[in-house]
């Protein structure tokens, strides 16, 4: 079995976290040389400070299940479920992400510098997911409290059955946005191909402008014109089974 590669050289992406934890060692993993199991095992252990993961080469479950206030930088494209179920960690993916990036995240931040595939942020309960490029279908499906900001467009059935949290789409949304949505609030700057069942446009009140501004700022898009956005949410017509709604189910 390959040995764990730990490199104490300074991380290539210094951040505020690094400044605050200058006494902590930095860890450098090369997935071309170290099995994913060893990397994730180390990330689940006693670890702090900054961690760099090179050569993910589309590996699945990179940095999944981390529960520590660390900064993890992944240099390259990742496969499915990168940063899955993340707690506390700030994860930056310098590449594209496959299906289910940050799925079921509880807290922390996940930033995808490229595009994300399907089901980005699926069922996530908390934290912030930023995809600077586009996200494919089912972005924010069944989201349960996470904040998601997408720099570009999202595919069909995004925010399907979305329960809580906020989804910001700086580009366009595909068909069936917010189908069967519960209490998630969606903000879209571009066009919406179609809204799903029980999802409607809603007025943008002061508190929503404030909320949107805060989300855009947190995601690094503070310069957007807020007036270009439309808010969408639940009409709450499907909250109870009714005969007249039969065709909508």
């Amino acid at each position: 079995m390959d040995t764990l590669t730990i490199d104490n050289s300074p991380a290539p992406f210094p951040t505020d976290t690094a400044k605050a934890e200058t006494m902590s060692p930095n860890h450098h993993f090369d997935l071309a040389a170290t099995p994913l199991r060893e990397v994730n095992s180390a990330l689940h252990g006693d670890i702090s400070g900054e961690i760099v993961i090179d050569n993910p080469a589309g590996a699945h479950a990179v940095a999944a299940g981390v529960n520590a206030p660390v900064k993890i930088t992944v240099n390259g494209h990742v496969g499915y479920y990168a940063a899955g179920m993340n707690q506390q960690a700030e994860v930056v993916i310098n590449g594209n992400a496959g299906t289910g990036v940050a799925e079921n995240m509880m807290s922390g931040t996940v930033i995808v510098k490229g595009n994300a595939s399907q089901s980005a942020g699926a069922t996530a309960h908390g934290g912030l997911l930023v995809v600077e490029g586009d996200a494919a279908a089912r972005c924010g499906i069944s989201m349960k409290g996470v904040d998601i900001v997408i720099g570009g467009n999202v595919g069909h059935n995004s925010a399907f059955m979305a329960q809580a949290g906020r989804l910001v789409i700086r580009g366009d949304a595909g068909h069936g946005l917010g189908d069967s949505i519960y209490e998630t609030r969606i903000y879209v700057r571009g066009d919406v191909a179609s809204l799903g069942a029980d999802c409607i446009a809603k007025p943008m009140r002061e508190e929503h402008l404030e909320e949107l501004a805060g989300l855009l700022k947190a995601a690094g898009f503070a310069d957007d014109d807020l007036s270009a956005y439309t808010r969408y949410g639940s009409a709450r017509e499907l909250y109870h089974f009714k005969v007249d709604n039969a065709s909508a189910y």
Partner: protein
Amino acid sequence: MTENLSIEQRGLRESATFDRTTIAAIQRAAETGIYDIRGWGAKRKLPHFDDLLFLGASMSRYPLEGYRERCDTDVWLGTRNAKYPLHLSTPVTIAGMSFGALSAGAKEALGRGASEVGTSTTTGDGGMTPEERGQSKHLVYQYLPSRYGMNPDDLRKADAIEVVLGQGAKPGGGGMLLGQKISERVAAMRTLPEGIDQRSACRHPDWTGPDDLAIKINELREITDWEKPIYVKVGASRTYYDVKLAVHSGADVVVVDGMQGGTAATQEVFIEHVGIPTLAAIPQAVQALQELGVHREVQLIVSGGIRNGADVAKAMALGADAVAIGTAALIALGDNDPRYAKEYEAIGSAAGYYDDFQDGRDPAGISTQDPELSARFDPVLGGKRLANFLRVMTMEAQTIARACGKAHLQHLEPEDLVAISIEAAAMARVPLAGTGWIPGSGL
């Protein structure tokens, strides 16, 4: 004078096609305009374990002495990949039932009863409650399409993880919990508005198909550091293919739930018309495992209509490693107890017939979130009753196994069984009693 004569004496004839139940269903649909939703599993008559009999030992095989000679009942589950497989004292486990569908006290009682006899219990849609975790020595955590209440902390607290693709009462259907049961606590656990009619998804939100599932299972293993057995649960339908694909996806344990398996709330039409009987599913599952060379290495848990030790022994003789009970466990806790007969009638049902688990008005305090009704249920007493029932089932299965000359329940084999109907013989792939004929085998 006809009023003193019985229906038969008056020569009235009920239609077999349009019987009273059918007439009532049509009338109900015409009145309400919405389909019937209920709990329980399939109520129709199906080929079942009752259609099988054991061939006790005599001259050609010799039996073990009852009460004296050893007949072990333990089972290991999840030995394929997990660092910590489960080792249970009895192969009778408790199936997944949610807090939400059941009261917190009922969930606690399931944990208490299971732990007392050294078996496992299972969470359900809506997450893990502290009551349940606290009282369950071996707790299986269900990973469902809705992911209600799913969080990595509870995942790590679990002893095994069950990825649920479906259940026998509704293969292909999603969860349902009506507003009467979405109390403040249930709503908070599921991140839903209080009192809504919850519809949950039938497909997982971030994977589709066996290739994706393999990646998902790998993620769950990575998150939990390969410690926990991963089960895959399917509702019985295309069982041969589903079990093969579950194994290919990396399942350590496959759970097959036949159409008699219960539900807390599902459309009646779904319960009675989708899926296949448990009896038909087991041989398909075993064949799939045998063809892949993993029978016993990937364990098989069978559920759906398991009621007594004979059913346990028959399921195991057909090749299951363990069974799971749901409806029978609720009955052991006190569901449908005749002492509540008047109250069942007051809500339009009767003791022995009550299946409106979705209504949340259970007089026994089991399938409810109503504080007053829940308070009627004593989790300690319920746990004792369940433990008693589990012991009886285990001893009954042992009795049969000894009679067949087996020193372990897992030594029971299809050769110990015959069928008393052609349908059961064909489904279970055992001979019709008194013949060597297995319909469909070409023999």
